[in-house]
């Protein structure tokens, strides 16, 4: 297999630095930028209150959610630098009654736009008199203020990061740095509830690519958090890890397919937890009889060493928030407690805050253990996530792994196999889990559904496991 620069970037979800597209507008009349302005906040809340009063006037329960968000992405690679901006405003009005839920969505975040949407939803009604409760406190602004960050500052930061990685070899054929900032101001208004939050999510990453024979080895390290741009950065060890992993020579021989003792790196544990939470541990997944039968509350579905919590309240977590897109305050909820399924993902969120509602995790936390390091007698250390597929009906999981590092008699043999997969049933994989390390890593996930972003994060340790590992490639 071969890759070009475009594919490498596309695979990492960062697009070409030069090809980054600019997008503007996404609602709002021709006037100075209104994003995050305090005057706007007061206006928006007033419009949303009017809309909710109109909806209640029709004898149904109303909720109004508005968002003004801005996405900035800067990339620096071998061909130069690029910055992209996107701004999007939106309003979702919801009416609920005994017959179900109806929504009206508009990108017109003006008084007329909001009220027109309310009338489209419930017709011309007399506004109900409602108590919306106290006005929310002004959300904190991270430092530096995202509105004050210039393109030049972002590029300069990336250039400094690139300069710090002094050990780049000529074998590295592609190197890039990326920083992304999602700055969303969200308002939620319902009877007895008036909330506002500002979520500033930052993701930094570097990518290194080196050829190994006929195949490219792509290595990426990222950090993702909520807060200020400068709150975190990649340290020297992380930069060295990205470089050394790309430069590592892969063993050309065939991988020995079979059941092996394993240590899974945090990025793999995180991706397994993420896909399981999204596709299995939700009320929606329970529609499938196979899932409902397998995943009964109170059932043991993993080893006693395995716990999983969805903690939307986690301070500075990339996927965290103060309230979800139905206006419900963030909670920390155990999903699997020492192997037992105790609850399900319950926070309702909308892609981009305006898309259709879905139940997704916010910040998953896989329980850490006490081990400082996980030793293996014989087996493999699996590193690098290349994608996970799961079939909810059969529980079959296929984890594509970038490399398997062989361990024999407690020592690394130096053999490293590229492109293997861990296959089997998720239940067995979790049931066979062993101890975990005390150290964890946090992975931030930003994907898109119909062009709308979704933000999640997972904190995971290294985890002992066992399972069927096999080569993914056909040998030529």
């Amino acid at each position: 297999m071969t890759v070009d620069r475009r594919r490498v970037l596309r695979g990492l979800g960062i697009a070409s630095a030069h090809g980054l597209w600019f997008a503007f507008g996404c609602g709002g009349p021709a006037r100075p930028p209104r994003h995050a302005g305090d005057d706007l906040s007061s206006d928006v809340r007033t419009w949303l209150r009017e809309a909710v009063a109109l909806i209640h006037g029709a004898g149904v329960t109303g909720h109004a959610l508005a968002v003004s968000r801005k996405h900035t992405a800067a990339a620096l690679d071998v061909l130069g630098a690029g910055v992209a901006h996107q701004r999007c405003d939106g309003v979702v009005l919801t009416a609920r009654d005994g017959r179900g839920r109806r929504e009206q969505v508009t990108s017109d975040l003006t008084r007329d736009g909001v009220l027109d949407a309310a009338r489209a939803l419930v017709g011309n009604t007399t506004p109900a008199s409602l108590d919306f409760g106290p006005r929310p406190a002004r959300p904190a602004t991270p430092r530096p203020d995202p509105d004050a960050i210039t393109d030049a500052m972002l590029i300069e930061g990336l250039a400094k990061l690139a300069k710090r990685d002094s050990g780049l070899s000529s074998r590295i054929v592609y190197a890039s740095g990326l920083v992304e900032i999602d700055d969303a101001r969200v308002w939620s208004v319902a009877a007895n509830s008036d909330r506002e939050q500002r979520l500033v999510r930052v993701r930094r990453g570097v990518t290194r690519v080196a050829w190994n024979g006929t195949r490219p080895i792509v290595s990426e390290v990222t950090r993702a958090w909520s807060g200020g741009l400068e709150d975190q950065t990649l340290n020297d060890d992380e930069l060295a890890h990205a470089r050394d992993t790309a430069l590592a020579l892969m063993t050309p021989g065939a991988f020995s397919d079979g059941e092996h003792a394993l240590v899974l790196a945090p990025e793999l544990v995180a991706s397994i937890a993420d896909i399981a939470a999204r596709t299995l541990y939700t009320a929606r997944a329970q529609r499938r009889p196979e899932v409902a039968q397998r995943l009964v509350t109170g059932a043991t579905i993993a080893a006693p060493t395995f716990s999983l919590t969805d903690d939307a309240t986690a301070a500075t977590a990339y996927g965290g928030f103060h309230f979800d897109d139905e206006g419900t305050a963030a909670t920390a909820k155990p999903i699997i407690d020492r192997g037992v399924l105790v609850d399900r993902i319950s926070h309702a969120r909308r892609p981009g805050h305006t898309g259709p509602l879905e139940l997704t995790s916010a910040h998953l936390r896989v329980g850490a253990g006490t081990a400082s390091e996980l030793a293996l007698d014989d087996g493999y250390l699996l590193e690098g996530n290349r994608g996970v597929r799961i079939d909810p009906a059969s529980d079959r999981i296929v984890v594509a792994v970038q490399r398997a590092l062989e361990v024999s008699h407690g020592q690394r043999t130096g053999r490293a196999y590229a492109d293997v997969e861990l296959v089997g049933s998720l239940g067995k994989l979790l049931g066979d889990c062993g101890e975990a390390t005390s150290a964890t890593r946090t992975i931030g996930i930003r994907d898109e559904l119909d062009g709308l972003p979704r933000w999640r994060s997972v904190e995971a340790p290294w985890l002992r496991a066992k399972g069927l590992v096999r080569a993914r490639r056909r040998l030529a």
Partner: protein
Amino acid sequence: MISRRDIVHALEHRDLADWVVVERDQEIAVVDGSQREEHRMRWQLTVHADTPAGRGTARVVIDANDGDPDQLVDEAARLARLSVGPAWTTIPQAAPARVELADPALSIGTAVDAAIALAKLLARRAESNVTLETRITLLRERVAMQCRTGFHAEWKATLARVETLVIATGHSLEIIREARRADGLELVAAIDEAIADLRLLASAGALLPGPCALILSGDALLHHGLGVWDAFTSQADAVVARQGLTRYHERGVIAAGSDQVAEPLSITSNGALAFGVRSAPVGDDGDAVRTFPLVDHGIAAGLGLDPREAALLHRDPNGGVRNLRVSLGTWDEKTTSAGVRVIDVRRLRGLEIDPYTGDGDLELSLAIDRATGKPFTGGTVRLDLIDVLARARRSARSLRRGPYQGPAAVLIEHAELLA
């Protein structure tokens, strides 16, 4: 308030080599347990700027009712001048393809009403012991396009997407259908097939690994759209081809001996197929959509060309790869080689295709061993899809679904079923 006239006015006063404006006025309805209606204006602006170093291009997408056209155009022009590539010249505009894309039946009333009407079709199909969980998404749009040359086109389109979880006998299957017309969804047949497969799933046993011949049909052949035929679309990407990264090259065989088999494979991109889900009169860059061959009797015959790639190759643009029409064969769907275990694959759990090599990983959800007639579930098959599809026997019976038109089944004579 953004209007096409204002954007065009702003563009005409900038020093730009070429530009295209696309305005999409969209109504989107989603009906599942709840109802959702969205109205959005989507603007797409493509500008080309010539510089001494070459030509730069920028594309801007805006979901908005309002904005400042001058600012928008200035930013797009600035970006275009920053993204300079090889010089090329726009090829004169050709006539748009004549193609119908809007179903009058889906255009009546509100978008939510039309989506509810589709949901009712499904509800009638539900049997007492079958549960259907359905989400219907209906898009109605009016598209207007204007180019620097004065070319102007307008059309209406509808697109319905139905995702249904069919639940029976303690098992579930998800079916997804997309069509521009309500009757193109063929929902009744899809549900009936799913119910029959759920009954088979209830009695499915464990797989027996080993060599076999595979029959792929229906949902197994067209998993999530074009299914296994997607292996050919990335090979027709002109950008990838120009970089020398495609597996085969124009005018060469797509696989060793692919032109020597009894019924060589031919594949055509047909973007002018009436009510085709990937049909359009013109592409997003203002290029007229054309029907063109991807593979002709086992020989690589064409590439999807946008205006830039077409200009660099001194050819006419064709709107890129769209709906695929695969040549029919003569296979009767019964005859197979003697002494070979034949697996009839009904559904896949997953299909992953490497866009560069054409290697495919097929995860089987439901299959039938023809010798015993017993259904089984699970297993993986790894195939060099370009090679095996070039040699596969194709049925005489045809199927049209989503972006695909071609044989209803194929027989792949050499495969290995893995646990």
